[in-house]
Every structure is written in structure tokens, then in C-alpha cells.
């Protein structure tokens, strides 16, 4: 561990507040007026200097959205959201068009320092040479609505990898955007995806060319800072034939009393023999201990395994947000394509999580694995909801699903709602689920060996989640373990 990391770890331990990412950055912001209309969308499109076709695409989404209603089938409850009472565009004022890191507002950079995201390339580069255990990570940081900096552009460009804000990609790579944007999650896919399609302001774009193994982990850090703002980022990742890429996503937001909306869309496209690994550590502000405030995290994430033997792997650790509603999915079109979903969802306090996946088997001999760990504490509710669908042509398709829930205390709920639909007689689908508690014997044993009750719970929970956590890239795994611990603080009396 280098000094900076040790420093950080120490700070984490000393931090009194349980949500240490709750600070606010004082920075001059440029807001669009509240509310959503065609003119707001025109404004966003204009601010982003978008071509005409993009504006049309957004307007189409908006018109679809107006005909839709929010989904009601999730096991989550929240007051009706007034979509006219939100800002759909907020950007740091000074950051009109940063050409290099030096032009980025230093206040912003300090915010990301506080979050532990090293934006400064030089610092990381220095670290790379001495520390083999920390491979370099290229980062795209999204602050409210805009991408403020993308690091390691040159290294990536040398490998032929495109990694840039999606707003830039729309201008620079219009053919690719027109071909792939909305090809996995269409504008009218669901209420929140339609909303995102109409108003998304930024996000990351990744293209890994044929035969290229992306030389480093790519990462985006999302931060909601402004008040009364919705964050609607859009991510599009394309791995061409035989390409490989690993992508990490992290999120935080300041502590606020009101609820904030985050409705992102992530689309992954894997062509022949391509491999995309997408990891998320979601730690949006969950609200205070009385359930006030917190992020509504309504996200649509879907990957298409288009090519033969393509492979998409989702890993998520969901510890934050007042409400999480997300189902990272795989459409397994290619023959022998592989989809994976590894998930840990922890809820405490008044948090609600309804999360899971969809595996749609279309290609012959496509395979999928689902491993979901759900932990509920406090007065929270956590639901695993997953669909495995085998279509008639998916001969030899295989799925294995395991869902395990752990309850801590009896004021919380843990639920499992699997949907299994098979239309192919040669397909094999297996589903297992268990519900358990931390036994008194386990706790007693740990305590007798000198651990505090909370440390014992942390230990047991980490053990329960081990199979998922080991799927995370290393630098995320450590963070995720700490998050689990922090999230469960105060869960036992």
C-alpha cells in the first residue's frame, strides 16, 4: 500500500459520519430552468453542440416518455416524483470546455481528491512504476451533468481505444453513435430509459477495436452535487471482434434532505469473441437514519452479446441509494455467448432495493450464471428479481442461478422473485435460493475470540459475499468490503 492509500484508509476509519462522501462542493453552477419540455431538450442539445439528428432522437424519446407511466411492479415505495420540479441540466460554470486537466476548476479536482479519485495523471503514472499491485486506471469523471475530465487519453489512443465523454463522441464519431446508441436499450424501453434518452447530458463512450485488449481498466466516477438535479448519464461501450475491456463505475452524492433522481442508461455491445466486464460499486447517499433524503437510483443497464462466443459479465455491489431499481441484463444473441451477473445488495435503515437481472437466451448453447447475495438490516427491504428466458431457438442453453438472502434483525425484509420461462426442451435451467440469518453461535464464537459484534457481523457478511466480491477488480474489492461494513453499522442493537 502506498502512502496515499494508507492515508485514505486511516481517514476512513477516523471518519465519524457514516456517509463520508456527503460533503458538498461550492462551485458556481450553470442550471437549466426546472421542468421538462421540448424547449428544455432543445436547450440541452444546443449546450452540447449536438447535430440535428441527435436532437431528433431525443425528441422522439421525449414524445414516447410522455405516453408512458412509471413502472409499478417493483417492490419499492416512494412518493410520486414531480418530474417538472427538477433541473435537467446543471454544469459547473467554469468548465465550459476543458482542453486539458490544467484547465479544470481546481475546486472540482479537490472534490475528486476527497472522493479518493486520482484524476491527476502524473500522480498515478508515478505510482504505476513503483507499485505493480495497482494497475493504472483511466478515469472519466462525471460531475452532475457533465464529464469533467478523462485521464490517460494518450495511452488509450495509442492502443486504438476510444474513451471519451459521450457528448464528445456524438460530435466526433457520429456513425458509431447512430449505429449503436439505443440499439440495446431503445428510447421507449421503459419509463426511465425514455426519460434518460430525452435528457441525458453526459456519460462515457468506449470503443475497443478488433483484436485489442484494452491496456488498462476504464473507470467512471459519478457525482451528484447540485440541488434539485436529476442525473441522467448515458454510457455506451462497444467491444469489437476479439476485443477485451474491463470497466468500473463508482458513484457518490452529497447528503441532502430531499430525494434526488438518478436515471442512467448503460448499453454494452460485445461482438464476436469479445469480452466486457462491467463492475459497479454504487454508494449514492442512502438518506439519513429516519429515511429522509437519499438518491432514487432508477437505472437501466443492458448488454447485448451480439457475436458468437461473446461474453458480458456484470458485477455490482449496491450499498447506497434510498431506492435502487436496476437489472443489469444480458441479451445472449450470439452462439455460445456467455452472460454473468454477480451481485451484492446491502440495505440498512429505510433503504429499499429491487435489483436483479435478466438473461435472455436466444443463441444456441448460450450460457448464463447468476449469483445474487442480498443482505437486509434495519427497516430496509431488499428484493432479488430476476428473469431467465429461453427462446425456442436457444438449443443447449444453460442457466444456473443462486440467490441467497441474509437477514439481520426482524424489522427488515428479504425477497426473491425469480421468473423462469423456457421454450426449449434441450435447455437446462437451474435455480436455487436460500434465506438465512447470522446464527447466535457464529456471533458468539467471534466475540469470544475478541471481535466486536459489529466486526463479527462484518466478517460474516464478507464471507457470505465472498463469491461475488472476488469477481471485482482488486482495487474495487477492498473498497467494497469497507462499504459493506460501513453500510451495516448500527444494524445490531
Amino acid at each position: 500500500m502506498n502512502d496515499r492509500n494508507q492515508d485514505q484508509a486511516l481517514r476512513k476509519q477516523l471518519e465519524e459520519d457514516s456517509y463520508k462522501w456527503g460533503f458538498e462542493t461550492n462551485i458556481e453552477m450553470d442550471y437549466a430552468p426546472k421542468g421538462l419540455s421540448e424547449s428544455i431538450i432543445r436547450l440541452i442539445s444546443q449546450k452540447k453542440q449536438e447535430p440535428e439528428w441527435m436532437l431528433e432522437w431525443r425528441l422522439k424519446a421525449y414524445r414516447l416518455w410522455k405516453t408512458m407511466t412509471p413502472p409499478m411492479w417493483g417492490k419499492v415505495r416512494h412518493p410520486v416524483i414531480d418530474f417538472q420540479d427538477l433541473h435537467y441540466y446543471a454544469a459547473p460554470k467554469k468548465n465550459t470546455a476543458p482542453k486539458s486537466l490544467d484547465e479544470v476548476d481546481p475546486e472540482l479536482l479537490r472534490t475528486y481528491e476527497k472522493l479518493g479519485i486520482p484524476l491527476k495523471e502524473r500522480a498515478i503514472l508515478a505510482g504505476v512504476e513503483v507499485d505493480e499491485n495497482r494497475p493504472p486506471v483511466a478515469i472519466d469523471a462525471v460531475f452532475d451533468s457533465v464529464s469533467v475530465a478523462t485521464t490517460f487519453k494518450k495511452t488509450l489512443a495509442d492502443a486504438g481505444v476510444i474513451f471519451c465523454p459521450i457528448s464528445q463522441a456524438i460530435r466526433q464519431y457520429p456513425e458509431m453513435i447512430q449505429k449503436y446508441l439505443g440499439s440495446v436499450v431503445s428510447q421507449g424501453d421503459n419509463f426511465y430509459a425514455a426519460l434518460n434518452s430525452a435528457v441525458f447530458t453526459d456519460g462515457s463512450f468506449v470503443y475497443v477495436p478488433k483484436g485489442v485488449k484494452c491496456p488498462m481498466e476504464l473507470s467512471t466516477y459519478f457525482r451528484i452535487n447540485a440541488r434539485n438535479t436529476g442525473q441522467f448519464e448515458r454510457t455506451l461501450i462497444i467491444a469489437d471482434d476479439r476485443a477485451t475491456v474491463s470497466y468500473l463505475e463508482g458513484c457518490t452524492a452529497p447528503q441532502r434532505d430531499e430525494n434526488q433522481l438518478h436515471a442512467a442508461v448503460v448499453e454494452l455491445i460485445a461482438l464476436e469473441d469479445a469480452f466486457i466486464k462491467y463492475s459497479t460499486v454504487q454508494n449514492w447517499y442512502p438518506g439519513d437514519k429516519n429515511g429522509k433524503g437519499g438518491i432514487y437510483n432508477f437505472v437501466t443497464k443492458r448488454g447485448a452479446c451480439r457475436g458468437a462466443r461473446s461474453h458480458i459479465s456484470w458485477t455490482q455491489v449496491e450499498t447506497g441509494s434510498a431506492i435502487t431499481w436496476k437489472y443489469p441484463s444480458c441479451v445472449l444473441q450470439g452462439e455460445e455467448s456467455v452472460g454473468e451477473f454477480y451481485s451484492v445488495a446491502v440495505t440498512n435503515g429505510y433503504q429499499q432495493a429491487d435489483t436483479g437481472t435478466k438473461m435472455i437466451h436466444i443463441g444456441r448453447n448460450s450460457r448464463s450464471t447468476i449469483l445474487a447475495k442480498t443482505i437486509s438490516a434495519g427497516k430496509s427491504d431488499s428484493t432479488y428479481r430476476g428473469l431467465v428466458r429461453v427462446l425456442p431457438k436457444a438449443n443447449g442453453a444453460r442457466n444456473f442461478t443462486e440467490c441467497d438472502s441474509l437477514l439481520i434483525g426482524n424489522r427488515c425484509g428479504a425477497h426473491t422473485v425469480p421468473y423462469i420461462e423456457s421454450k426449449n426442451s434441450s435447455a437446462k435451467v437451474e435455480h436455487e435460493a436460500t434465506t438465512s440469518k447470522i446464527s447466535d453461535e457464529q456471533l458468539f464464537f467471534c466475540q469470544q475470540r475478541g471481535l466486536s459484534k459489529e466486526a463479527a457481523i462484518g466478517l460474516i457478511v464478507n464471507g457470505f459475499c465472498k463469491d461475488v466480491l472476488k469477481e471485482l477488480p482488486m482495487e474495487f474489492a477492498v473498497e467494497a468490503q469497507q462499504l459493506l461494513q460501513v453500510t451495516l453499522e448500527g444494524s445490531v442493537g
Partner: protein
Amino acid sequence: MNNLLEIKDLHASVIEDSLENNQKEILKGINLNIPKGEIHVIMGPNGSGKSTLSYVLSGHPNYCVTQGSAIFKGKDLLSMTPDQRAAAGLFLAFQTPVELPGVNNVNFLRTSLNSIRVARGESELNAVDFLKLVREKAKTLSFSMDMLKRNVNVGFSGGEKKRNEVLQMSLLQPSFAILDETDSGLDIDALRIVAEGVNSLRSPDFSALIITHHQRLLDYIKPNYIHVLAKGRIIYTGGAELSNQLESEGYGRLLEEAL
């Protein structure tokens, strides 16, 4: 013509579930004649294709023959379904006997025997005659009545499963038996029972192909020939004494000579 089984230039591939277009050739030109009344042994290193040969001869759907022929009793063996092969007198003792939860062992044995009898144009055995027969066979194999009542191979130990295979063989009275490593994992008493099962069938009309790694089974069953299989081909054929040589020297020298 005295050959019970004639295998000529047999090539076969495995069809893996996930690799239907990508077949892997395992048998690469097997030539083997087994005359009536003889017992042949196949030995060879792991992965040489021994079990594949037994599966191909008995018609397992996961293997496909790409070239060559196998004539059994003057008929084209490879065009028959597995049950037709069984009716023709071919018996495979499985290396890993399959478990059938919910299928009662004694009912299974009766269904199997009667299917073969009907296919041969014989009459079905009624319950009384069948039971008499099965009791008699079970006794000689020290097979408990309790094992007959249970579901096929479910909860059986490794040795019990193998004995169940031998019981099926002695009931069905095949003219040609393939024993695929039936001796592996058996203690000495179980081994003797297996050997007795085979020896009791020995007659001028019974042949067998025994696949084994060890020569200890051959202390009880004297074969006519021993073939060494490597990389999908028979690379050496010798008499019963070959097993002692292989036991002490291994396959190394033979493999080198063959290359």
C-alpha cells in the same frame, strides 16, 4: 467366418454440447477382430480413447463415427440403435453406472430382460419365473435382496454399483460384453466376484472386451490377447503375458517404438 466382431479403420469424434461444429477426433483408425469365444483386453494410458471405443460400439449419442466400420455377427453394428445392439447380444458394463432415481431396480431388470427377449422373439418371463432367476443370480454375486428393492444405483456404493452391472450382465447373457474399467475402485472380494461373473459366462459363444488399467483383474480372467491403445490407435498386440510387462515397465517404451 469365425469373427464375432470386426472393426475396420474406425474413426470417431466426440460431440461436445458446446462445440457441435468443432468435433474432436478421438479414435483414429482402430482395426480389431474379436473371434467367438475369445477374451481381449485393451490397456493404454489415460485419454487414449479406451472408453470412447466402448461408447462407440454401444451407440452412445455423444459420439459420432466419421469413418470405418464395425460388423457384429455379420451385421452393421453402427447403424443400430443402442437397444438393438443390446438385443443383438452386446452388453456394456459402464465405467460409471448411471443412477435412476424413482426406478425400482428389480422392475428395471425385468423390463430390460423382457425387452431383449421380445426383440429376440422369445416370450417374456412372468414375475414368478423372473424372480426365481434373479434370486439365483443375485445369490452367486452376493447381491442382497435389499439392493434389488432399491432404486437403480441410487445410494449404492461404488462396489455395489459395479456388482449391479455384473448382475445385469449375468441376467442378460450377452454374447459379447464390454467391461469398461469395471475393476477400478474394487476391493479384492468385489474384484473376484466380477471375475467370476465373467468366467461363468465363458463359452465358445461368448466373447468379451475388457478395458482395464490394472493387471490384477487378469490374475482371475485369462485373456487371449492384450491390445495397447494410444492416441486413438492400437499400437501393439500381445499375449496374456504382456500385462506383466506393462505393469513393470509402463507404456513408455511401447509408445516410443510406435512413433
